[in-house]
């Protein structure tokens, strides 16, 4: 078939429309019966508890390397004592949410896309519809709720582990006073910083779950199609997290004043 620019454009517009409808319905289902609390808890366990090791490790090492790198620059200005502040601001406002989001995207957007994709190509999604159950309600909404909820807490944990990683470096390699490190890290944070750092994971959770489910539910073409859907879900959710991060940061800076 000859390549048609119109068909290509139509296909993309249709994909955006379908994604928008799915994401809206995934959220709107929360406000009407039936709700699948059992599935939500199960997904919280898979997404939240299951992601703990990678989030803990990512947070710790990011904080540690951040302390190491920033100390190098700060030492030139004789401001090594600001290490705690820098690690704290960077982790809470930016690196904690973004890196946790990217890690969870790599682990769970792929998991959702492959699981739902396999169900799609083996007609299990059609079977569910045929049995009178809405797959968006039964499959998408629990994943969406669980990811938004758990990413929020995983980010808090990641921030804390990042600060801990920084403190280990500050104490062992930089010979800084731990009390000073933690006090400056704590005191530099304002409500606006914490608000920004905790709003982002909720948005990133929404992106991860909706993108993962969308690519899974639109998979076609057997196992190869499932593989393609999985890759696309990770790539799309990761890029979208970084793009949304930029816009949200700028928006919050405008709304809440220079931070």
């Amino acid at each position, binding site marked *: 078939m000859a390549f048609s620019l119109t068909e290509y454009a139509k296909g993309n517009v249709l994909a955006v429309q379908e994604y928008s409808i799915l994401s809206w319905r995934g959220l709107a289902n929360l406000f009407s019966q*039936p709700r699948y609390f059992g599935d939500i808890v199960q997904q919280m366990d898979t997404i939240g508890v299951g992601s703990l090791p990678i989030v803990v490790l990512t947070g710790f090492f990011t904080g540690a390397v951040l302390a190491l790198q920033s100390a190098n620059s700060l030492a030139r200005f004789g401001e090594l004592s600001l290490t705690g502040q820098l690690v704290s601001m960077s982790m809470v406002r930016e690196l904690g949410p973004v890196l946790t989001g990217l890690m969870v995207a790599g682990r769970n957007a792929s998991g959702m896309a492959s699981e739902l994709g*396999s*169900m799609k190509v*083996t*007609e*299990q999604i*059609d*079977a*569910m*519809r*045929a*049995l*009178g*159950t*809405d797959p968006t309600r039964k499959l998408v909404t629990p994943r969406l709720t669980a990811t938004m909820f758990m990413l929020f807490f995983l980010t808090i944990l990641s921030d804390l582990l990042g600060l801990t990683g920084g403190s280990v470096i500050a104490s062992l390699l930089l010979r800084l006073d731990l009390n000073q490190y933690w006090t400056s890290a704590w005191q530099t944070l304002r409500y606006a910083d914490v608000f920004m750092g905790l709003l982002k994971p909720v948005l990133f959770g929404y992106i991860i779950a909706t993108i993962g489910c969308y690519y899974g539910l639109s998979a076609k073409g057997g196992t190869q199609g499932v593989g393609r859907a999985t890759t696309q879900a990770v790539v799309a959710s990761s890029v979208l997290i970084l793009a949304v991060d930029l816009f949200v940061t700028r928006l919050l800076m405008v709304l809440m004043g220079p931070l």
Partner: protein
Amino acid sequence: MTEASHNSTEKTVVFENVCLRFDEQVVLDSLSFELEHGTTKVLLGVAGSGKTTILKLSLGLLRPDSGRIFVLGNEVSAMRETELFELRRRIGIVFQESALFDSQSVEDNVAFRLLEEKVAPEEIQRRVWEALRFVELEHTLKLFPSELSGGMRRRVAIARAIISNPEVLLYDSPTAGLDPVTSTTIVELLVKQRDVYKTSALLVTHRLQDAFTMATHYFNSEKNKMLPVPHGWDWDSKTTFLVLNEGKIVFEGDAAEIANSDNEYIKEYLTL
């Protein structure tokens, strides 16, 4: 299991001038037919003639480009997806590849609809056992679909379809790819469902012998087995045939009519 309640004045499934195409390919071309209550219509035709599509259209899983489809008095082709979920609970379907939920046990697969309807656990347990007893697989409760043979998976799919006493059943090639013995077991189940519970059904199949077995056998409840209809019996099997070719109906009638048809395509099809 209780008999499904029917309104005799209402047709179970009605297709009115239904057209459907995928891209450039015409799948159904102004197709019209009716399925009476308590009867079985066997849909025959070569691969790609639109048989499975008819089942998916009946459930509202696909939408026609034009024409109207009525199932149990509801115009499926004009209903929204959210409205269709309620109607679909009155219809059972057996997919060609069974489409069992592979991460759930046989018990949970069969109980799926009842769990969704929040039926009491004791009631679910009883009805799951009853449905699995019907397909003679009550010993597989705790197994997973991957641990079953192809024929067993089809039988579990039948149990899942009949557990809520549907008013109409849709079978998509339930015997495809199975050995003759397993195929006969499954055809016997379909005959049992037709004769004991009087459920209306659309049966898609490639196997002519299954279709003729459906038309020439009855279920004897006393002996609990399918038997051939003896000569001289005034027996209406309530089974008719519908042959499709390139999205159009080329034949509609009973077993005797199809066997004696003068239509060249039908003759060729029967000798394939």
